[in-house]
């Protein structure tokens, strides 16, 4: 069965004032339906840029130089901008690292969820709000109404991230990209969020592309791992194979650090 998402030879350059930086130098990866894939790598390895390139929401200086992003056979990079609107949020959704800074500080949580629902599913405002509150309950937020009307700075990191997940799943995407969603959270809350994500994946059914530098998490939730180093995928395979028999020196370095201070 063809994979949900297939990335071929993706290259992204950064045009800075006086020099060009090759952030992504030819990445190939696949994500099948309902599969959890981890994209592991240290800071500066180009993992975040790769995921942002998939739906072309790159920062200004970045330019996609080469490659294809096939989503159910259609190449995202060739699509006209207007056509991408329905894909972003509708087919591919994102969760980011610090929920507080990735949520608009002057809009309520409810408003930020509702606007996506209205835009994608053309619902009336009242209907959209009901659906929004239901989404918050779905991500196990007890006082859904209070949170619906609160602002991001009034909620804890964990609560904001739950709201963020609700927002991402508002339009039932088939691929959820999570970029280090729990790195800035406390250990206990991190565990809860990971548990929530896996449960929702089973219940709702979507593929998960999980980006992290923490191999403990990678081992816990993923079937397959891609290891990125300096803009290239240096190794990929089933999770257990990578842990047992890492081939690339950087993977080995990662595994060694994991065994030393990564796992308990």
């Amino acid at each position, binding site marked *: 069965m063809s994979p949900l998402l297939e990335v071929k030879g993706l290259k992204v350059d950064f045009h800075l004032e006086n020099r060009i930086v090759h952030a992504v130098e030819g990445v190939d990866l696949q994500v099948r339906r309902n599969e959890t894939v981890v994209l592991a790598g240290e800071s500066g390895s180009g993992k975040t840029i790769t995921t*942002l390139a998939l*739906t072309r*929401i790159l*920062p200004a200086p970045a330019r996609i130089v080469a490659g294809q992003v096939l989503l159910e056979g259609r190449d995202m990079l060739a699509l006209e*901008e207007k056509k*991408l*609107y*329905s*894909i*972003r*949020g*509708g087919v591919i*959704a*994102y969760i*980011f690292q*610090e929920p507080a*800074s*990735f*949520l*608009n*500080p*002057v*809009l309520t949580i409810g408003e*930020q969820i509702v*606007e*996506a629902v209205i*835009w*994608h599913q053309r619902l009336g405002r009242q209907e959209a709000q009901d659906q929004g509150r239901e989404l918050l309950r779905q991500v196990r937020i007890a006082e859904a109404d209070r949170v619906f009307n609160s*602002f991001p*700075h*009034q909620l804890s990191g964990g609560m904001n991230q739950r709201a*963020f997940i609700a*927002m991402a799943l508002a339009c039932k995407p088939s691929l959820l990209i999570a970029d280090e969603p729990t790195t800035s959270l406390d250990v206990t809350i991190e565990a809860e969020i990971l548990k929530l994500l896996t449960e929702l994946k089973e219940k709702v059914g979507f593929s998960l592309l999980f980006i992290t530098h923490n191999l403990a998490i990678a081992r816990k939730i993923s079937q397959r791992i891609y290891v990125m180093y300096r803009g290239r995928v240096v190794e990929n395979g089933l999770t257990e194979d990578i842990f047992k028999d890492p081939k690339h020196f950087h993977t080995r370095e990662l595994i060694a650090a994991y065994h030393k201070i990564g796992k308990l």
Partner: protein
Amino acid sequence: MLNYIIKRFLGMIPVLFGVSIVSFAVISLAPGRFSSLDQAMNPKVSAQYQMRLNRAFNLDKPVHVRYFLWLKDLARLDLGRSFVDNRPVAAKILERVPVTVGINALSLLVVFLVAIPVGIRAATKEGGAFDTATAVFSFVMLSVPAFWLALLLMQLFCIHLGWLPISGLHSLDFDYFPPVRRFLDVAWHLILPVFVSSVAGLAVISRYMRSSILEALQQPYIYTALAKGLPQRTVLYKHALRNALLPIVTLAGLSIPGLLGGSVIFESIFALPGLGQLFFQAVMARDIPLIMAEVVLGALLTVAGNLIADISYACVDPRIRYK
């Protein structure tokens, strides 16, 4: 909210008190006293007249006594009478307020209505022709001395082309015009003054808006908005603009005191009966009650303006409103 405002008002009292003391001291101790003589000295004006004036205006009493007398009157909200023509100071100020506030409000309106869209367009088309054009305009307008610009524009538009009236607020037979014509007449007279007085503001606010929008567009929550598939327009006008407008609200609040600050030069060139002129003439003639009234009024407005700016900022930015 209320106890915050009360706290701020209580905070104001010392400032206003300080202002009144400093200004009373400055104007009383500064050399030069009130005198009715014009610069063309008229020998017919007798000498005792000056003595009578000094006695009438308590100028012969020591400074601190006079200050308390003034304070006592202020407590009864009586701002006293102007030395120059003995009219109540409050009336003299009130009759000038509409002109000064009117022009300042108009130019503030022009500034915010024009500068914000200009700033947005310059930001969204960064580096484009429009952006560089507005940048050059802003720089030049920031650097041009306002009264020099006024003189040149007057020479061009009023004398050379004759399109605009030179000075004053109304045409000669304004009182006999029908209402509509009256409105047009005043508007016609205000074109040049409002333009000249809003030029600097336009430059500052459009540059400020441009950098504020550019900064907002680089914030992380913009990626979230894009990731949700929202169109470019919504991302710009709902997410970025609302955050970018926050500092502008403060700027608007802070320019409230300016509303009452008439510019002396401006009003004398365009012969507009504003507060700037009144204050300058009062200071030159050492008309103490009038000076004190305007200084305290100005101080009250400055402090009130700061409060309004803070409150408006809080109303607009939820991060400050609730913790």
